[in-house]
């Protein structure tokens, strides 16, 4: 990864929070069906969030920031997957004990100590992702450990919690959420800060994923597991990269964040060198420059350009649109020239740190969000505009300039955020939650919340977890992935196949079939892990086949091995008629029994080969004959037997 970086020297430390949806019939605090996603809605609710004060009379930093954004929040409701609980118009029902059971299983597999009494807490989120303004969450286990890359990966805690809404859009001051996912039970596994390279992070994500899936009681598919990656370097600060959808994204993101933090630390040194040693020493002044841009060649800074942007986006006053008339404000950053183009992430500069804050907090999202003196458009009219702006601000040569535009209240917030972000830069790396992108870059999402946002849920009584319950779950617990992988490896199954089976849940099917039908482990692993994967890719509806039918098939494989040679044909038949017994399907197709007098057909075929002027090479002849015959005989006569008969016939004709 470029630019190269010595992670040990940088003091890179990474910890994970892995989220995994659980396979329950219902949601966690109401009786709605779990994971019934929809793309339409039949009702909407409009809400706002208001921070609640702590006993010190202070707001949590995140809460305050999210209140400043003055977001209008719309929830889309679909009767088929939400009730009045998700609307926050009904208190929670008692916690879904099926979800608690699965969370306990998960904890046991992670080697955790199960909490004796589970207390539901509320974790505040004011971005609207949960209509109550908080997520209900509870610690189920603590103090776990996993074998990882020849050492131990510590598990700090495992909690069970409700999933949040899915974002539909976020434009200006309006954010729209779909509520179908809200309330789905999930577990969050928190590792210790034990990871030290980007590649280790990806490996740890995959390992925890295999642990989760080994229970057989978690959901798979898009969005069923997501992770937050916490990154810091020596002298930096924990930054949370939120909602990383795939392990494969992690190395690039971790690398980029480490690079960003190191650069921010260098920027801090530069600011200190310039005498900005206290946040209070940053000086940002501003003035209205709307008139300087009335005829600008940069369309977005002109009133008509803004109005077109508003009209095209159908932005409504009081919803998407901020308050106040259109204004262009210029901020003078005293003695900060050169810092806007300070590198941060690979291919990013400090100005984009400002843009991120302005987009989220001021709600100004018209690209390019801001103009600044260190990357000003260089056509001639534009440069003249910059000169006028500098003049109006009374800039010295070592001052930098940032220009923002939009509704007056929002440009006011934006200029204030410029000041605040520079104050943070004097301190070093701000505690942030950042949003990941596939190219390995991140952007500001919110200020990182602290423990102050947690408080008990007075609506829910605690759940006692008895030793009996833990023992019962322990007795039925599936194998941990590393034990299973070793067992499969001993049978000659390659690691990639084992990982696939564990990740996609096929391993449980394999073990059950082997245990109940006496099938060969290696054969069954390849069957489920490779052959069924192939058929699934060919759009065969493999998942419609019930376990009972798989068992019947494997029993037939054992008693009549010739059937295994026709696996693809048989599985296609089973998928097409998922209710029919395998025996009846085989009977219908005449599979499993040699057709009468099949050997008599070999002689003429071989003679035809000899006469047809085809290849005279012996092997090619056998292949040709096999190809012709096996299409008909596969699953009826063993291929070896057919081959032997052909060989015999060829030998005779030679």
């Amino acid at each position, binding site marked *: 990864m470029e630019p190269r970086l010595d992670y040990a020297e940088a003091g890179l430390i990474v910890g994970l929070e892995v989220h995994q949806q659980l396979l329950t019939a219902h949601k966690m605090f109401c009786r709605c069906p779990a994971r019934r996603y929809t793309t339409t809605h039949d009702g909407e*609710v409009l809400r706002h*969030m208001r921070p609640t004060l702590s006993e010190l009379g202070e707001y949590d930093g995140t*809460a305050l920031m999210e209140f400043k954004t003055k977001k209008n929040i719309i929830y889309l409701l679909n009767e088929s997957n939400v009730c009045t609980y998700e609307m926050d118009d009904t208190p929670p029902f008692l916690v879904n004990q099926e979800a608690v059971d699965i969370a306990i299983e998960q904890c046991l597999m992670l080697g955790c*100590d199960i909490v*004796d*009494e589970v207390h539901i*807490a509320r974790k505040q989120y004011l971005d609207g992702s949960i209509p109550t303004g908080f997520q209900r969450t509870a610690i189920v286990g603590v103090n776990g450990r996993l074998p990882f890359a020849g050492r131990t990966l510590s598990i700090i805690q495992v909690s069970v919690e409700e999933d949040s809404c899915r974002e539909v859009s976020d434009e200006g001051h309006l954010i729209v959420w779909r509520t179908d996912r809200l309330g789905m039970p999930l577990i969050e596994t928190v590792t210790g800060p034990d990871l030290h390279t980007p590649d280790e992070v990806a490996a740890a994500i995959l390992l925890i994923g295999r642990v989760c899936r080994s229970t057989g009681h978690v959901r798979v598919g898009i969005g069923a597991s997501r992770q937050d990656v916490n990154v810091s370097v020596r002298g930096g600060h924990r930054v949370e990269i939120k909602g990383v959808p795939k392990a494969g994204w992690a190395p690039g993101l971790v690398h980029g964040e480490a690079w960003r933090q190191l650069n921010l630390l260098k920027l801090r040194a530069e600011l200190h060198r310039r005498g900005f040693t206290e946040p209070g020493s940053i000086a940002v002044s501003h003035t209205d420059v709307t008139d300087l841009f009335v005829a600008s060649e940069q369309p977005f800074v002109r009133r008509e350009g803004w109005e077109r942007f508003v009209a095209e986006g159908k932005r409504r006053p009081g919803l998407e649109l901020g308050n106040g008339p259109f204004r262009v404000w210029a901020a003078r950053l005293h003695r900060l020239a050169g810092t806007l183009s300070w590198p941060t992430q690979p291919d990013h500069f400090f100005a984009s740190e400002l843009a991120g804050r302005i987009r989220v907090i001021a709600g100004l999202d018209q690209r390019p969000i801001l103009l600044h003196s260190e990357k000003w458009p260089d056509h001639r009219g534009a440069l003249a505009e910059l000169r006028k702006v500098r003049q109006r601000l009374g800039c010295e040569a070592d001052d930098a300039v940032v220009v923002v535009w939009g509704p007056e209240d929002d440009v006011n917030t934006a200029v204030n955020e410029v000041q605040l972000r520079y104050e943070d830069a004097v301190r070093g790396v701000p505690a942030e939650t950042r949003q990941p992108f596939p190219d390995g870059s991140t952007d500001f999402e919110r200020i990182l919340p602290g423990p102050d*946002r*947690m408080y008990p849920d007075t609506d829910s009584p605690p759940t*006692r977890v008895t030793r009996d319950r833990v023992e019962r779950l322990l007795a039925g617990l599936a194998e941990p992935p590393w034990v299973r992988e070793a067992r499969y490896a001993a049978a000659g199954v390659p690691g990639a196949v084992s990982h696939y089976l564990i990740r996609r849940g096929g391993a449980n099917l394999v073990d059950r079939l082997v245990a109940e039908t006496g099938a060969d482990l290696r054969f069954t692993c390849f069957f489920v892990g490779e052959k069924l994967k192939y058929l699934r890719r060919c759009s065969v509806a493999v998942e419609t086949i019930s376990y009972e039918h798989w068992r019947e098939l494997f029993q037939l494989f054992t008693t009549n091995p010739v059937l295994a040679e026709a696996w693809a044909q048989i599985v296609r038949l089973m998928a097409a008629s998922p209710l029919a017994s395998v025996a009846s399907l085989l009977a219908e197709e005449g599979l499993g029994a040699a057709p009468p007098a099949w050997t008599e057909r070999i002689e003429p075929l071989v003679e035809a080969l000899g006469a047809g002027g085809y290849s005279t090479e012996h092997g090619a002849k056998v292949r040709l004959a096999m190809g012709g015959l096996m299409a008909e005989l596969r699953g009826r006569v063993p291929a070896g037997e057919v081959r032997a008969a052909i060989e015999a016939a060829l030998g005779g004709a030679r």
Partner: protein
Amino acid sequence: MSATGDELKGYRGRARARLAELGVRVWSRVKLTNDAGSVFEGVILPRSETFDDLHIVIKMVNGYNVGVHVDRVTEVEELGWKEAVYKIPEKEFPVRPNLPKVTLLGTGGTIASRLDYRTGAVIPAFTPGELYGAVPELADICNLTTRKLFGVFSENMARDNYIALALAIGEEIAAGVDGIVIGHGTDTMGHTAAVLSFMVQDSPVPIVLVGSQRSSDRPSSDAALNLIHAVRTAAYGDIAEVMIAMFGPTSDRYGLLHRGTRCRKMHSSYRSTFRTVGDIPLATVSRDSFTYLSKDYRRRDKSRQVRVDPVYDERTTILYYYPGMHPDLVDALVEKGYHGIVIAGTGLGHVNKPLYPALKRAIEQGVHVVMAVQTLWGYAQMYVYDTGRDLLDIGIVPLDNMLPETALMKLSWVLAHTRDHAEVARMMTTPIAHEITPREPHNGYLIMQGGLPEIEEWIKTHWK
């Protein structure tokens, strides 16, 4: 803190004994180790007395709470002790001489509050300074004074509270306020609004009851917006009646002003739970405007003389009729010395025949029996069927479209004035505050049914 046990607040039995043995107490900051070697660092919290006696609750450093079984504790190290003090910092409520004067009367519950993050305890914000800290918008509306009358859940409101509340309203009006807001739990807000409508007549200024359906310690609470609506109504609204100001839709959009005698809580938990029954609401109120829906209200007029008449007879009840009801219920009420019975009858105001003799006996013994309808909407029209006519003959007084709870409140108020049958009947059937209306508008009864195409269309295009 005393040694009498408060330092183990809420802990009973085994947990209490174990804590004492370990030498730690509530608010101890501890490092607790269990038999699996897990370490829990945090603060020991008080425990709810309704929970079992087997667990110690710890608020961990990361903010989560867990319960640790007492038998599994192997070692506790006390790192410190600091009692949580529930105190809200006050910010002085700014005085702006040109703004109206509003008094907020507190009855209990929490209209505004802050949260103690360490314990999750909700600390009510009530003084103007506290309220200003929690809902600063109030300072832009009025000059606010607060008086805490009592601190009870709304289900515990009763005669003495109603009387004290009416007297306090009278005092505030005499002192020249521009409007009164009453903070009240929502469960019996309708009852209080009704009784105040009789106890406080001819008010020159608005009297507004307000509460919340989602407590104010939640970011999504309706409390702040309800309070802003209520204070605005008290300060600037034109309707000088007893009203309830609560969310119109469940969305954060506007509040409805309901007449105190015609309003009912209709859902156990929805924000839009209060509905005017048998009529339309008086007005809508938002952060910056009023829309008056009705023209038929008493206007604000500071020269009008208020009449406070705070009397209440508690020996009254509602008999919610059901098929097969036995007459001995009525006899029991008479025997126990009840003075008045509101029957919530079926349909147009009916009960079964076996009750007739018991009701007749009751009335002969001086018990006043009045009839409201359990359908809530519509009139008691007892002359339509024989059943109703028989009941009229017995001497039961029909109350037209008076809501059952309003009828109970009014009967209690009336019976504290007179026990004369004819006078009680006259007073009960003479409307004071629209508790009986002569006409029911066709849009006064709207319970839309989901699933119908036209309703679904409406729901799709309007915020609920």
